[in-house]
């Protein structure tokens, strides 16, 4: 396999890892105002992600760094082309982060409610924007001869991209509700259970909807699916969603979270399949950024592969260790938010 294809897969791995990890804390944020009705419950929601959200968010920084590293032209074209959307995304991520950190510092209702709204809106907006960005990349963008995309913010708001935005929000809520069911108890937990069922429905509807819209608005996403092997992603997604329903039915909450996470993997595999060998398909096909024309030199890719092969097992080991240390229901102590 070519090095650039290895890096295509590794970046897919990093972004899928980000979607699984930050997915559940973005989804938790999106559900915050809906499932948590009073101050105690809201604090439980915040503390359900308290020790881990920061580490989760760093996967985005690492994913973006790896994209910069392995495919600089993709990073340059997408980040500058989606300028205002990126600014909005950064604003949303900043808002939710400070909301988590500062909400519990005062007891005034208006203070806490303001940060609750910030946490919720910031989280939901970020989840939607990630989907909209991915949707546009999947659909293919108009790349000018100098390698720049000049469609502006309005150009990003097409039906397919918006439907992927809804799907992305649905997946985050699926992750978030599955996480909350694991971490909470009582009335809060039963509301999280209902949200989880609604999230499965939302994901199914949005997935089918995005696929239907794609037939007219983004036909290129089907290009790769003539090959039966390409169906691994959709097949996995459909299966784990079915298992997810079974797990919910039999109250196997740990498995439900696992299947929710595997839904992310399935959808990421589907998106990756729809893209390959492109990273950013262009409307004018010759200008597409692909694994063959957008990658860094073999020297750079080899060095980074060594970094990743040494680093990622260590990262996975200590991340698992930390999740294991914080396993179980939320417990409030002096260090809590």
């Amino acid at each position, binding site marked *: 396999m070519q090095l650039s294809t290895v890096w295509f897969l590794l970046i897919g791995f990093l972004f899928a890892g980000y979607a699984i990890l930050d997915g559940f804390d973005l989804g938790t944020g999106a559900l915050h105002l809906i499932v948590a009705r009073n101050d105690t419950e809201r604090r439980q929601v915040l503390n359900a992600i308290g020790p881990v959200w920061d580490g989760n968010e760093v996967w985005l920084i690492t994913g*973006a760094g790896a994209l910069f590293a392995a495919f600089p032209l993709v*990073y340059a074209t997408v980040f500058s082309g989606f300028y*205002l959307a990126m600014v909005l995304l950064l604003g949303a991520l900043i808002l939710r982060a*400070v909301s988590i950190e500062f909400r519990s510092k005062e007891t005034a209702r208006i203070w806490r409610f303001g940060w609750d709204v910030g946490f919720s809106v910031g989280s939901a907006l970020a989840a939607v924007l990630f989907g909209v960005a991915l949707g546009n990349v999947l659909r293919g963008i108009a790349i000018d001869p100098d390698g720049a995309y000049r469609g502006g913010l309005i150009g990003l708001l097409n039906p397919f991209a918006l439907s992927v935005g809804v799907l992305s929000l649905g997946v985050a809520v699926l992750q978030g509700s599955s996480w909350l069911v694991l971490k909470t108890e009582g009335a809060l937990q039963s509301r999280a259970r209902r949200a989880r069922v609604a999230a499965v429905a939302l994901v199914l509807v949005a997935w089918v909807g995005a696929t239907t819209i794609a037939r007219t608005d983004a036909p290129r996403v089907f290009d790769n699916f003539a090959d039966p092997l390409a169906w691994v992603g959709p097949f996995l997604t459909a299966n784990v969603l079915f298992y997810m329903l079974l797990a919910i039915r039999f109250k196997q909450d740990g498995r439900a979270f696992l299947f929710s996470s595997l839904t992310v993997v399935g959808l990421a595999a589907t998106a990756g399949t729809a893209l390959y060998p492109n990273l950013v398909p262009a409307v004018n096909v010759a200008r597409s950024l692909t694994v063959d024309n957008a990658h860094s030199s073999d020297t750079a890719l080899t060095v980074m592969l060594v970094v990743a092969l040494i680093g990622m097992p260590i990262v996975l080991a200590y991340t698992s260790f930390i999740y294991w240390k914080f396993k179980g229901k939320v417990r409030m102590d002096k260090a809590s938010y």
Partner: protein
Amino acid sequence: MDVVQLDRLQFALTISFHFVFPAVTIGLAGLIAIVETLRWWTRRDVYDRLSVFLTKLFAVTFVIGVVSGIVMEFQFGTNWSRFSGFVGDIFGAPLAAEGIFAFILESAFVGVVLFGRDRVGSTVRWVAGLLVCLGTTLSAFWILVANSWMQTPAGFKIVTDSNGVQKAQLVDFFQAVFNPSTLPRFFHTMAACWVVGAFFLMGISAWYVLRGRNSDVTAFALRLSIVIAFLGAGAMFATGDLQTREVQANQPVKFAAMEGVCTTSTGVPLEIIAVPPSQNCATGTGLGISIPYGLSAMSDLNPNGVIKGLDQVDPSLWPPVAETFLSFHLMVGLGVVMLLLMLLGVFFLWRRSIERHRWWLWLAVLAIPAPILATEVGWMTAEVGRQPWIVQGLMMVSAGTSPSVTATDVSISLVAIVLLYALLFFLWIYGLTREIRRGPATGAEVAPAIPGTTPTADFSPAEPASTGKEGR
């Protein structure tokens, strides 16, 4: 303003704002590592309470550093896409290493340090503290590699891609990582961060003493921070000397602007306080105190040594002279003042009279922002002095912007960032003053209840607002 100037303004604003927070957190992480080690080794309660207090200050600062740091990383792509294309092959590996080896490490273990005190054993907590310190240090290293490569590129070749666009390609990873300015810059920056952290704790401890809130914790914190601030302030001069010599060797134009040398000559004086030369060098340095032959003597070890002036290159390749000169001199001046303050501090510490010198303690409180300001102007020297290059000698700043981003786009983001950062800064100050007012737990306070034994109190809605609800 045109789009290049707007892009530069936005970058200057976001990087100046961002750097405050990593500087404080790197310094605090170092202090936490020391105090945690003492706690783990001696099991004394005073170190435990100081460590908890430090992690609270750390937490408030860390979150702002993380969110403003994401802006920095995204900005390479959003506003400087041609630059990103040019340096991607080189920057890739250090940035990937930063993410994988450093960011994930520090952020993951910050969770343990902040939330896990009562969940993990003493040894795990200590190791987590050390790993946070290691993580912050490694992030500093890798991002400084990227910056240093922009100042003194090495280990690369220039190639032209299929679209006819030039870019730098990695040839030798270790040469690129350990380019001529990496290590001097790393040592100087790390020393600066430790000084920032030490002055931070020193000022806060001094404030407690002045307000009559001194305890075993603040007494130890004051002593520890004075020693570290003193060693750090000394290290600033040693590492600063190293770095200035490196700049003289590798970026002589920047060096000439820093020292205000217009024309190449021998026996150049060292300007201590002076009006900088005008941008075209029509008027040279003047109206100030200078040491005759000082600069030649210092940088050449020969009073008649030759110093290359700005005239070595065309004026179009000069950096903004006054800004480079003034920021450099302000940095050195602040360094001297801080070193004097610390000499006195160590003297009083040795005489065991530190708590009696209230004027010194007040100076220590007022000096909290001094190393932060010095760090900011130091970076200004490094970055403004590199102009008009974005990568020294290889790419101009004006060639690095994003072709698709308009002046309107940048104006919108600039306004949004100014408003958002004003809020962040306010929140930071608010969060810090809140933690400082609450202060470290005093020895009289009973150790925290074991979690799980009184969960009902924590979950009860009738709980009085002030007991645990305010969180950390």
